[in-house]
C-alpha cells in the first residue's frame, strides 16, 4: 500500500494544451465595406492595415492578409504519446486593377474553427460547417 502513491504517480497520464497565433486577427466586418469597382488601395489599407505580402500581376496587384491560429493537445501515458495539431487561417486577398481600384476580394475565415482534439478525432468534419 505504501508503494501505491509511487505507482500512481508513475502511471498518471501527463497532458498539455497550447495555443499560438500568427499576426493580428482580421476583423470580418472590415471587408464588408470594401466595394469592387469603387474602393481604392488606399481605402483597403486604411480598413485592413498593412498587408503581409504585395504581389505584382503585370500592371495589376494583389495584397495578402493573414491571421493563423494553431491549437495543440497532447496526452502521455508512460511510453505512449498522442499529439494533435490543428491549424486554420483567416486569410484575405484583395486584387487591384492598374489604377489601384479594387477588383476582387477573396476571404476565408476559419481560425475560429481551430480546436483541441486527439489523433483519433476527425478534424475534417467541421471544415464545411
Amino acid at each position, binding site marked *: 500500500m505504501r508503494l501505491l502513491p509511487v505507482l500512481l504517480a508513475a502511471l498518471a497520464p501527463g497532458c498539455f494544451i497550447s495555443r499560438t497565433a500568427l499576426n493580428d486577427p482580421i476583423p470580418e466586418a472590415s471587408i464588408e465595406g470594401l466595394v469592387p469597382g469603387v474602393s481604392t488601395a488606399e481605402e483597403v489599407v486604411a480598413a485592413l492595415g498593412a498587408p503581409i505580402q504585395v*504581389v505584382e500581376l503585370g500592371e495589376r496587384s494583389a495584397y495578402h492578409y493573414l491571421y493563423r491560429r494553431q491549437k495543440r493537445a497532447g496526452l502521455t501515458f508512460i511510453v505512449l504519446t498522442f499529439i494533435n495539431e490543428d491549424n486554420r487561417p483567416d486569410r484575405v486577398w484583395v486584387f487591384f486593377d492598374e489604377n489601384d481600384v479594387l477588383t476582387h476580394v477573396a476571404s476565408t475565415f476559419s481560425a475560429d474553427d481551430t480546436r483541441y482534439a486527439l489523433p483519433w478525432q476527425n478534424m475534417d468534419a467541421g471544415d464545411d460547417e
Partner: protein
Amino acid sequence: MNARPGRTRLALALAAAALLLPSCVSFGWTRTHTDTAIAEADLERLPDDAHLSDCLALLGAPLRVWELPDDDFAIAYGWFREQNLGGRVSVPITDFYGASFRYDDVGNRAHGLVLFFDEDERLRHWRFGFLRDLLTGALQEAPVSGTLQEAAQF
C-alpha cells in the same frame, strides 16, 4: 511469509520500470491538420468559362498568388494532413555512446491545387498534386525567380 517481500520487490521493479522506461522506449501517434482540403468534385461547380471571381467565390482566399509571363497569373491552394505512427528505442552501448532506432510512418504530405488564368482573368486550366511539386513546376514559368521558397511556405 515469503510472499510479501516478493510482492514488494515486484512492485518496486514495476515502479522503477515505469519511471525509467520512457527514457529509452517511446511510442507516439501524432496527427496534424492544416487548412481546408479541396476535392476535384468541388471544381465541377465552376462554370465552363470560369472567371477569377467565380473561383474565388467558390474556393475562398488562396494560399499564394503569382505572376506568369504575358500577364497571365496563377493562384494556389494548399492543405496538409499528416499522421505519424512511430516508435523509438534507445540502447546505451557504453558510458558515452548509444544507439537508437526510429521508425516513422508518414501517411501524407502537403497537397495542393493550382489554377492558371490568362490576362483577362479567365481560368485556363488547373492541376492537383503535391503542393511542392505543383509550385516547383508552376514557378518555373514565373518571370520572378526566388519566390519558390516563399511560395512553398504555408
